[in-house]
């Protein structure tokens, strides 16, 4: 599984996981000691002397103070390590919506800014600085294998650093309750080797692929002639709305509808036909399409790599 706090895939999450094990070890010792004393007190045959009891209590209090101080300090230093400002980070703006993630890579040249959704591709070994905000209600960005969580709040921009040590897919989920589909608001962080990342990034800069066959071409017509264009954008076509996720390269993504189902043509068609069946309450309405039109639309979108 790729969404585990205790299976870290980066230095930041490793730091936290190590600290967690320290706390767990200390907690286990404390627990066993206290319960040991309790059982001894319950099972004793003779009354313990008051002096011994009071002395034990005092010692226990003193030890507790030392332990708490130690834990507090270890947390403080871990926190400082995590808060260190990264060098030359890749900046990405993440805007949370009910119930999907809008992602925009920043670049000095506006033409080189990539917009995508629900899938954050990052190069390995390079620090990523996320600028987080929310469009509607409060959400929380949480990819356990890479980093602790950070809230996305309307009216605020919060920051979170990520580093992935090795390539892989790390799943995350919105951690702050945000309405009907809080359960289906996943994000995939896909760490790529730097060259692979650059290749992917350049591919994302291109406009949507032209349909390669008549079915897909018909699918594009269906897209542009139906309800889809009210919310979605496909670079290189007339569809330029921003209410829903950008679909320019939708076929390159792992999952659909913020992690609700794997991305394949069948799921895509099912999702378009009746999103409310897969994700009740989602803002995407059902689209009334004839069978052929639906198949063509799915075929078109499946080509948008």
């Amino acid at each position, binding site marked *: 599984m790729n969404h585990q706090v205790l299976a870290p895939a980066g230095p930041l999450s490793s730091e936290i996981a190590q600290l967690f094990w320290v706390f767990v070890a200390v907690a286990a010792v404390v627990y066993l000691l206290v319960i040991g004393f309790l059982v001894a007190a319950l099972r004793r045959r003779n009354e313990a002397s008051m002096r011994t009891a009071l002395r034990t209590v005092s010692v226990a209090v003193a030890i507790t103070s030392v332990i708490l101080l130690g834990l507090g300090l270890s947390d403080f230093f871990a926190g400082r390590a995590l808060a260190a400002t990264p060098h030359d980070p890749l900046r990405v703006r993440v805007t949370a919506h009910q119930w999907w993630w809008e992602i925009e890579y920043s670049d000095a040249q506006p033409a080189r800014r990539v917009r995508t959704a629900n899938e954050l591709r990052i190069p390995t070994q390079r620090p990523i600085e996320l600028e987080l905000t929310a469009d*509607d209600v409060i959400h929380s960005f949480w990819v356990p294998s890479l980093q602790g969580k950070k809230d996305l709040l*309307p009216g605020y921009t919060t920051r979170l650093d990520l580093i992935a040590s090795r390539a892989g897919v790390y799943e995350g989920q919105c951690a702050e309750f945000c309405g*009907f589909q809080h359960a289906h608001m996943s994000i995939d962080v896909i760490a790529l080797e730097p060259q692979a990342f650059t290749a992917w990034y350049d591919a994302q800069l291109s406009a949507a692929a032209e349909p390669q066959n008549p079915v897909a071409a018909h699918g594009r017509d269906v897209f542009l*002639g*139906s*309800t889809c*264009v*009210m*919310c979605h954008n496909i670079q290189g076509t007339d569809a330029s*709305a921003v*209410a829903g996720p950008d679909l320019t390269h939708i076929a390159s993504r792992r999952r659909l509808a913020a992690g609700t189902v794997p991305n394949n043509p069948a799921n895509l068609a099912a999702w378009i036909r*009746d999103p*409310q*069946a897969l994700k*009740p*309450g*989602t*803002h995407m*309405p*059902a*689209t*009334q399409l004839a069978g052929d039109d639906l198949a063509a639309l799915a075929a078109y979108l499946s080509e948008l790599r």
Partner: protein
Amino acid sequence: MCLRFPELAAVLLAMTGVAGCEREQRRFSEPSGDALTITTPLTDIEAGGQAQPAVAKSPYDENAFAISEGQRLFEWFNCSGCHAHGGGALGPALMDDVWIYGSEPDQIYSTIVQGRPNGMPAFGARIPRQQVWQLVAFVRSLSGGLRKDVEPGRTDSMQMRPAPSQTQDNP
């Protein structure tokens, strides 16, 4: 049925009436078919001055959730682009009680679906019926045409207009 515990039905109905139930329904999708099909002709201009057809009842006039969905769509679909936030600009104001093409639900429905001369585009092919009806209910709430307890409060944005629940009723 809005009641989860039928045994409480009698008591509860006596206490609060059924009105609250419809207000609170969250209907994510409507069964396809007749439910939302408009039964009156899509235009009120009939040759020969025939009798007015029966007014189609809007399915969402008493549903607070659908009205708030309509409020969201009003921005998403950029209705504000012409109607401002209800105050009117390129398109007519929607907050007053002046209605060029009628204030009845089916008339507003037709306006959205078929468009109107001088600029109102036809959205029939672009907006699913359920969402049109949500917009109809919201537009009606803008002028205070609905019950106060279903009309939306303020939004979390710049206050360009009073919240529908704050406006005076226009009968």
